[in-house]
């Protein structure tokens, strides 16, 4: 029961996010009544509020369950490290648009599970936003996307376990390599998705109220084409750099980081025996 309810919360808040991403493509086709023009104006605000509420609901669900001091401290420190990596000039050459936030979030989600992954992803963006003065209407989207990247990364370890088991190669010392490869692709995909989702915060603003750009004859196809162009112009290059960077970073860091994190995971699980 508990699991079903949790699953539903995941699913519903995910749906809000997906809808937030897709709605600008539908709005023009449905906006007909001048009466509602006023609310059409506020559509981006409504979206931001809804995404914020979805993040809120998921956070209540995930952190409401008992969190041990170890997890709190570990999350805090990991978030700190990741946000430092994000803004510090590390004197390591990196391409523009590339952000090293995702690799740690995905790897932590992979090792410590969905819940940890979501909290780490969402709060990393929040903390680095606070530090760099980057709080804005884009924040709910950032938290949502990074949180989901971490959350879904948690599914990979289970999925891979199952897959390997299916192929009859499971064992305590199975190679990490296939997992790292999958995580690489995963990081690449999320790199692109992140950009696409974040754009939603300003795209509606940049486009203006849908009714005013919408003229008879423009359908879903044309709106998509516009977004496509917009995406190409504004962010594809950055998103590509981010996606490739994520993949490369996971490839490079994956194995040693997963090993290090796994070593620490053991400290979460132990038993206390008190003999009389």
């Amino acid at each position, binding site marked *: 029961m508990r699991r079903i309810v949790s699953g539903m919360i995941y699913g519903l808040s995910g749906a809000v996010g997906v809808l937030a991403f897709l709605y600008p493509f539908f709005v023009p086709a449905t906006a007909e009544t001048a009466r509602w023009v006023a609310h059409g104006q506020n559509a981006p605000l409504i979206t931001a509020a809804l995404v914020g509420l979805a993040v809120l609901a998921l956070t209540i669900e995930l952190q409401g369950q008992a969190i041990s001091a170890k997890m709190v401290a570990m999350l805090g420190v990991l978030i700190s490290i990741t946000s430092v990596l994000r803004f510090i000039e590390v004197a390591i050459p990196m391409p523009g648009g590339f952000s090293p936030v995702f690799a740690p979030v995905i790897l932590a989600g992979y090792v410590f599970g969905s819940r940890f992954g979501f909290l780490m992803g969402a709060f990393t963006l929040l903390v680095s936003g606070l530090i760099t003065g980057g709080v804005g209407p884009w924040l709910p989207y950032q938290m949502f996307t990074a949180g989901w990247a971490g959350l879904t990364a948690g599914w990979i370890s289970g999925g891979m376990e199952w897959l390997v088991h299916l192929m009859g190669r499971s064992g305590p010392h199975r190679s990490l390599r296939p997992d790292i490869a999958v995580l690489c692709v995963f990081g690449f995909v999320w790199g692109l998705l992140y950009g696409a989702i974040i754009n939603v915060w300003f795209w509606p603003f940049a486009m203006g109220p849908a009714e005013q750009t919408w003229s008879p004859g423009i359908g879903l196809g044309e709106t998509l084409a516009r977004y496509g162009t917009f995406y190409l112009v504004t962010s594809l290059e950055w998103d590509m750099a981010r996606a490739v960077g994520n993949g490369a970073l996971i490839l490079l860091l994956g194995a040693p980081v997963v*090993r290090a994190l796994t*070593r620490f995971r053991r400290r979460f699980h*132990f*038993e*206390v*025996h*008190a*003999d009389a």
Partner: protein
Amino acid sequence: MIHLDHLTYTYPGSSEPALSNVTLDIAEGEFVLVVGPSGAGKSTLLRCINGLAPHFTGGTVRGRISVAGHDSVVEGPQSLSRIVGFVFQDPEAQFVLDRVEDEIAFALENGAVPPAEMRVRVEEVLHLLDLAPLRDRPLETLSGGEKQRVAIAAALAFRPRVLVLDEPTSQLDPQSAEDVLNALTRLNTDLGLTIVLAEHRLERVLPHADRLVYLSGEISGEDGGVLSGPPRQVLRQIDLTPPLVTLGKALGWEPLPLTVKEGRAFARRVEPGAAEQSLCRSRLGDGADPLLCVERLSFAYNGASTLSDVSLTVRAGELVALMGRNGSGKTTLLKCIVGLLRPCQGEVTLAGKPLIGQETARICRQVGYLPQEPDDLLFADTVAEELSVTLRYHGLEDQPPLPPTQLLERLGLEGVMAVYPRDLSVGQRQRVALGAVTVTHPRLLVLDEPTRGLDYHAKQALVRLLREWQAEGAGVLLVTHDVELAAQAADRVVILSQGEVIAKDAPEVLTVSPLFAPQVARLFPGQEWLVVEDALSALGKAIPDDENIEVRARLSRHQGIGCPGSAADSSSRRIIADRSTSAAQDPNPPGA
């Protein structure tokens, strides 16, 4: 107050218990000092008192433990936090918030203490630990000693009846350490707080301790390898003692002196009989080749000069100790030598070749530099891997200048080659780091505070190792706060103050300065004895058994090498050796 009844504790996944069959009673208001070699279970014992072991670490407990009537194994650390305050080694790693006041209030906030009550309590501990002037400061800006005092204040916020501290000064410099220890004795005497302190800086705390608990680490015995009793009684049975006590034991002083003041009463009665056959440490003549030459080096950071006109040399086979207070520019000098910082003027040469302007990676092929935090170096999966990583960076993996296995043997690490470095003890970790920077077989070793956090045994092992390297012709430049170490190991001592060299001499220079004088020198002002062996051999006594063989080896080396002109030197130095007792006691009052 605290009763341990046949307590046995085993860490998860371990076959040997860390504590075995320990029985101990600590009365209310006692000041208990827990000593013993690292790995003997000091930290474990302390963590049992508030229930961190087993509740935080996991594992198996047998026996009983009760603190003020509460069973810590049953109730766990959260509820014990109202009775037992706990302070950890590293002041940095225990803060949740970033302001002094907020940090102290953190536990109270979580405990839902009403705001009005909270104000009272915070005010109270701020005053107890002299933190009131710092209340609004960000923790970042505090010194190590101040941070540790904040940690103590935070631990006292719940008004616990017991304060437990796990080596609270091991990461601090001597001045800060003294600050902290003074605060503790005040808490004990003024408030009657029960204090259980694990510490290896015995010199300062011994006089205040009501009881000494010694953990030998030999768990097989009936008593679990634990000795407990009044300090003088326990000290007689153990060999990890400060120089003063070692000397007192060897000379049969009764009652055993615990402070220099007490010791001096005995020392005055001692006749330095045949003492005129003075000791000399400059084993190397002036003719030895200078290996490292630093000439008129200056460095400024953000316009503030941190080094000015510093010159020093290290000859092959020589150990030079670089001393000075915090912020005197010692670490900056080392970083300039290995190229991590770029000096604004001056020359640094290694065997005649200039180093300035070269890449750190290149310089470090010939200079082994051990930074202050050896842990920063360690990240490989095994000890052996750490060495090969360095070789790989230098592109030397195919023709190592020194077989890594041989180096590991010398470092005493051959048994742990395949172990994850972070699972080792502080001393071992430090040797792994040392291995990682010396696997290129450097001609010069540059060590920054290598004895921080080490116990007596680990320190001796390090000194032994450095001697071996010296004998092979390597030069060593060692930054240290540890006067006893400098007195024992250095051929020469350089003292920096505010970025300038103020003294550059044989270790006897230490007898001059009240700040740097080792215990033996303070006992016998006017002699230039620095370490126990100096005094004993000058007094014609045999060296006691429990001082290790090491000491004798060193003495024989002293005698084997001629020392021209030492008599004249020593007479001239005696003039300045006449200094007041009070200055020697406390050269740096807290808050100075």
